[in-house]
C-alpha cells in the first residue's frame, strides 16, 4: 500500500482549493477521500501525478466546483423552507397589523400608530425583501425575475412612503413620489412590454397592467392632497385684510363738518352690522344643521366649534344667504358713500368689499371675513361717535 506523503497532501489540498472548493469542511473531506483512493488503489509502480489526474474526474462531470455548488444548494434548501415560512408569517402579521391600525385610527383609539408601524415594517422590510430573494430562486427567465424584483423594490419604497406620510415623518413625500412614479411610469410599462409578446401571458398581462396603471395613477394623483390652493389663498387674503384693518385703527381722530351726514353714517353702520350678524348665524346654522332654537340656546363660541372640518372648498352661500351677502355688499357701498360725505378727507377708511369673495371662502374663513367687516364698522362707529 502506498503512503501519501506530506508534500503530496499539500499538493492535493492546493489543487482542491485552486479548483474552486472553498468550504473548509468539504476541502478536508475531499482531501481525505482522494488520499484514501491513492493509498488503496494506486500501485507502487504508478506515477503519482498521472494517477491523481486520473482520479479527479471521479468527483465531477465538468469541474470540481460542482461538488461545492451542490453542497451549497442542499444547505440553502433548508433555508428556503425557513424563508417560505417567514414570508407566510410576516405576510399574515403585516396584513393583520395594518388592518388593525386602520380600524384603530378610524375610531381614534390608542395603538393605531404602533400597529401601522409594525404592520408596514413587517410588509416592507421582511415580507417584500424575502419575496425578492425567493423570486430569484424560482424558475423563469432572468428578465422576469429582474422586473418582478424591481416591482417589489418599488413596493418597499412606496409602502414606506405611505407609512411616513401617515406618521407625519420627514421624507414621506419624496418616498411616495419616487415609489409611485417608478411604479406607474417604469414598472408597469416594463411588466407589460416584457410579457405581452408571449401569447400565453397576453390576456393576464394586459388586465394586470391596466389595473396597476389605474391604481398607480389614482395614488399618484392623491399623493399631495392637502389644503386646496383656494383655501390657502383665501386664508392669506383674510390675514391681509385683518392687518390692513389694524393699520386703519391708527388713524388720527377726525371731526366732521356735517352732523347730519354723521348721523346717516351711524344709522347705516348699525343696519349693516345687523345684516352681518344675521348672515353669520345663517351660515353657522346651515353648516352645523342647527335649528334656530338650538342656535339661540348655544353660545357663539360653542356653535363655531361645532362647525365641520373642511380641507377643501364647500359652498358657503346658497339661496337666501347669497341674497343677503349681495345686500351686505350693496349696504357697504352705501356706508362708504356716507363716509365720504361725512369725512371727505378719510379715503383710507373706505372698505373695499370687492376684495372679499365670500363665495369662494370656506365656512370658517367666510365667518372670519364677516367679522372683519364688523370690526371695520366698529371703527367707523368710534370715529362717528
Amino acid at each position, binding site marked *: 500500500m502506498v503512503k501519501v506523503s506530506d508534500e503530496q*497532501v*499539500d499538493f492535493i489540498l492546493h489543487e482542491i482549493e485552486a479548483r474552486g472548493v472553498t468550504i473548509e469542511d468539504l476541502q478536508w473531506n*475531499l482531501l481525505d477521500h482522494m488520499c484514501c483512493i491513492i493509498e488503496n488503489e494506486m500501485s507502487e509502480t504508478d506515477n503519482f501525478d498521472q494517477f491523481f489526474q486520473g482520479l479527479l474526474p471521479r468527483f465531477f462531470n465538468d469541474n470540481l466546483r460542482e461538488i461545492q455548488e451542490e453542497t451549497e444548494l442542499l444547505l440553502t434548501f433548508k433555508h428556503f423552507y425557513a424563508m417560505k415560512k417567514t414570508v407566510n408569517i410576516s405576510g399574515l402579521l403585516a396584513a393583520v397589523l395594518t388592518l388593525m391600525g386602520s380600524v384603530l385610527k378610524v375610531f381614534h383609539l390608542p395603538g393605531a400608530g404602533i400597529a401601522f408601524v409594525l404592520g408596514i415594517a413587517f410588509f416592507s422590510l421582511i415580507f417584500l425583501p424575502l419575496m425578492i430573494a425567493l423570486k430569484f430562486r424560482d424558475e423563469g427567465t432572468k428578465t422576469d425575475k429582474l422586473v418582478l424584483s424591481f416591482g417589489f423594490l418599488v413596493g418597499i419604497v412606496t409602502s414606506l412612503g405611505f407609512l411616513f406620510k401617515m406618521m407625519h415623518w420627514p421624507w414621506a413625500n419624496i418616498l411616495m413620489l419616487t415609489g409611485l412614479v417608478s411604479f406607474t411610469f417604469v414598472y408597469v410599462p416594463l411588466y407589460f412590454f416584457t410579457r405581452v409578446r408571449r401569447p400565453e401571458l397576453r390576456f393576464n398581462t394586459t388586465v394586470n397592467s391596466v389595473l396597476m396603471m389605474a391604481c398607480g395613477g389614482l395614488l399618484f394623483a392623491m399623493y399631495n392632497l392637502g389644503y386646496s390652493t383656494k383655501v390657502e389663498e383665501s386664508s392669506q387674503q383674510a390675514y391681509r385684510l385683518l392687518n390692513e384693518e389694524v393699520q386703519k385703527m391708527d388713524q388720527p381722530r377726525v371731526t366732521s363738518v356735517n352732523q347730519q351726514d354723521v348721523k346717516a353714517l351711524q344709522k347705516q353702520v348699525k343696519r349693516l352690522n345687523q345684516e352681518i350678524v344675521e348672515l353669520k348665524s345663517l351660515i353657522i346654522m346651515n353648516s352645523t344643521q342647527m335649528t334656530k332654537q338650538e342656535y339661540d340656546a348655544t353660545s357663539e363660541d360653542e356653535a363655531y366649534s361645532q362647525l365641520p372640518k373642511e380641507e377643501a372648498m364647500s359652498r358657503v352661500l346658497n339661496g337666501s344667504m347669497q341674497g343677503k351677502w349681495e345686500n351686505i355688499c350693496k349696504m357697504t357701498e352705501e356706508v362708504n358713500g356716507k363716509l365720504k360725505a361725512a369725512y371727505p378727507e378719510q379715503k383710507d377708511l373706505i372698505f373695499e368689499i370687492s376684495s372679499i369673495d365670500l363665495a369662494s371662502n370656506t365656512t370658517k374663513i367666510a365667518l372670519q371675513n364677516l367679522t372683519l367687516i364688523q370690526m371695520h364698522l366698529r371703527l367707523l362707529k368710534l370715529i362717528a361717535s
Partner: protein
Amino acid sequence: MYICPMYSSELLKGTLKTIVLNLLKDNGRMYGYEITQRVKDLTGEKIQITEGALYPTLHALESQGELKTEEEFIGKRVRKYYSLTEKGQSTAREKANELADFMNTMKFLLNLEPRTGNG
C-alpha cells in the same frame, strides 16, 4: 449523481439519504471513502455512490442535525467520521420504512408478484 452500472440515476434519486443514514445506523461511525466502499461491496458493485453526490448529502444531513462528526488527524490531513444523532436514528428508521412501503406498493402497482387475497 450516481455512477451506477445497473440502475438509472432517476431510479435511485431520493434513496441516497436512506442509504447513508441506514449504513451509519448499522456501522456506527464511518468516513466518506468508507461509505462509498461499503456500498460498493454490499451491492456487489451494482450501486456505486459518487463523491459528487455523497459529500453534499453528508453536509446537508449534518446541518439538519441528523449527523454529528468527529475529526481525527491522520498525518497532515483530517478525517471526518460521521455518526447518527438521536434525530438521525429515528430518521433512518422512518426512511427505511418509507422505502420498504414504497417498494411494496411498486410491486403491487406493477404486478411484479401475485396479488394477495385475489383468489
